[in-house]
């Protein structure tokens, strides 16, 4: 296989406005922080963000005007920081569509995409207003006659995942929980991997069981030390509570959020 290493700038430049973008990690943990900041820097527009449980990533992309829709089961910062203010503001103002899922229906939609089928049956959902609100249909099981909800395939145009180690060919090793990263890598048309460090892939030969993402699914690999920041990346660093607190304090107010983004994310580039 060939060398897929590139820069974050180039990897993200290949994403079109309007793309459906799946983001790895979960809430405050192992999200692709550096790549999300690059999406903001490049001023992407009209993205549909796919995630089971998002936090700063979804919130920031809403504040920066990058996201037009969010397909997720949960968007919030968990107990330490509460609600996702920018996401709330954007949805309430009608700037972003909340395509609410049960987290399990995100999984089901990704599975349908992975398995090359147009829909995936999913247990549960009975009594919920979600199927009606989201247009999820049900089908009659031809074997038992039982009704079961089916979720349409959810194929991301691109999945952006942050892993602890990758080789130049895109084999990616995840330390700790894999969350929905493997599903996203399989479901997406393209996969961008950011990695704490690029290692010699020969190191994976001794324990291929530990390689979560096979390189042949991956299109671009970017070395990005601290590339999950401000998310956690076990065992190297936890989430940045001070930074997140500063963001959450301004996120609810579009003007303050824009200033924060200009200062702390666009930085020098914005001033130029």
């Amino acid at each position, binding site marked *: 296989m060939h060398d897929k290493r590139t820069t974050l700038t180039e990897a993200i430049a290949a994403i079109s406005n309007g793309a459906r973008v799946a983001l790895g990690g979960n809430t405050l943990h192992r999200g692709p922080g550096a790549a999300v900041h690059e999406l903001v820097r490049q001023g992407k527009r009209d993205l549909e963000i796919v995630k089971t449980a998002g936090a700063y990533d979804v919130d920031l992309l809403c504040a920066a005007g990058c996201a037009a829709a969010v397909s997720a089961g949960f968007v919030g910062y968990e107990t330490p920081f509460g609600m996702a203010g920018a996401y709330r503001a954007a949805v309430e103002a009608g700037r972003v569509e909340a395509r609410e899922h049960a987290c399990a229906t995100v999984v089901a939609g990704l*599975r349908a995409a992975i398995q090359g089928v147009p829909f995936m049956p999913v247990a*549960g959902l009975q*009594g919920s207003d979600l199927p009606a609100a989201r247009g999820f249909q049900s089908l009659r099981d031809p074997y038992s006659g039982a009704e079961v909800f089916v979720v349409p395939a959810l194929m991301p145009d691109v999945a952006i995942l942050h892993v602890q180690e990758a080789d130049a060919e895109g084999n990616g090793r995840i330390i700790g929980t894999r969350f929905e990263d493997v599903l996203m890598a399989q479901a997406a048309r393209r996969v961008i991997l950011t990695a704490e460090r690029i290692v010699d892939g020969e190191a994976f030969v001794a324990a291929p069981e530990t390689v979560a993402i096979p390189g042949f699914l991956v299109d671009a690999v970017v070395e990005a030390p601290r590339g999950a920041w401000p998310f956690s990346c076990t065992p190297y660093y936890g989430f940045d509570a001070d930074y997140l607190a500063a963001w959450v304090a301004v996120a609810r107010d579009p003007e303050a959020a824009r200033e924060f983004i200009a200062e702390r994310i666009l930085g020098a580039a914005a001033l130029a």
Partner: protein
Amino acid sequence: MSVFPAPIAPAEIMAVAMARLLRPGETVFHGVASPLPMIATLLAKRLYAPDLVYLNIAGSIDPEPERLPVSTVDPALLRGSRALVTLADLFDLSARGRLDVAFLSGVQIDGAGRINMSAIGPFARPKVRLPGGAGSAMLMPTAKRVILWRTRHDPRTFVERLDFVTAAGNVDRVVTPLSILVRQDGRLVVESIHPGVSPEAFREATGFPVEVGAATPVTPPPTVEEMAALREIDPEGVVHSEFG
């Protein structure tokens, strides 16, 4: 078992009440933003149900965390786990009827034990966009028992009518700072009110009709043993974080 001397914080009485609801051999799951279920499950495993299987969204099985995280997806919850599970595995487990208990919460909860985690006002253009129900729409009908907890007990939380039904299903108990509710014949009724809560205060705090009075049982307060175990598991007081 002797009663622990006051003051006991609302979070502590909730954690102990939630722990007591878990039974030996049960398989128990909690998701994101769930410090109280995390602590209750660890407490139950310590005191009542050592063979309980503790699963969580962090992906661990029967972890032995060195310190308790405030984020319940935190890798700190992986410590001691001999295998890992993904969220998809956990949903599947519930879907095929093998999950005994799921801890869930709701911003609004109605008298049938249904929850709203989606929106205040119209779903498509809400007055308040809420975080979303996470796994609840799938877990509530499929887990054998759902234990709801909510750190706020007021008429805006316990409502006659939900703005949106995010999830409905096998709710067994609801634990709040004021009471334990149990679902009987599809309706939430009072199982007990916590020590020091008056029937009047409880009734005023609850937006749907509930029968409560002098005969209503009082939640047995935490014992010395329970409080000792709780503080050993959680020396830094993460139990209080949901009341921040």
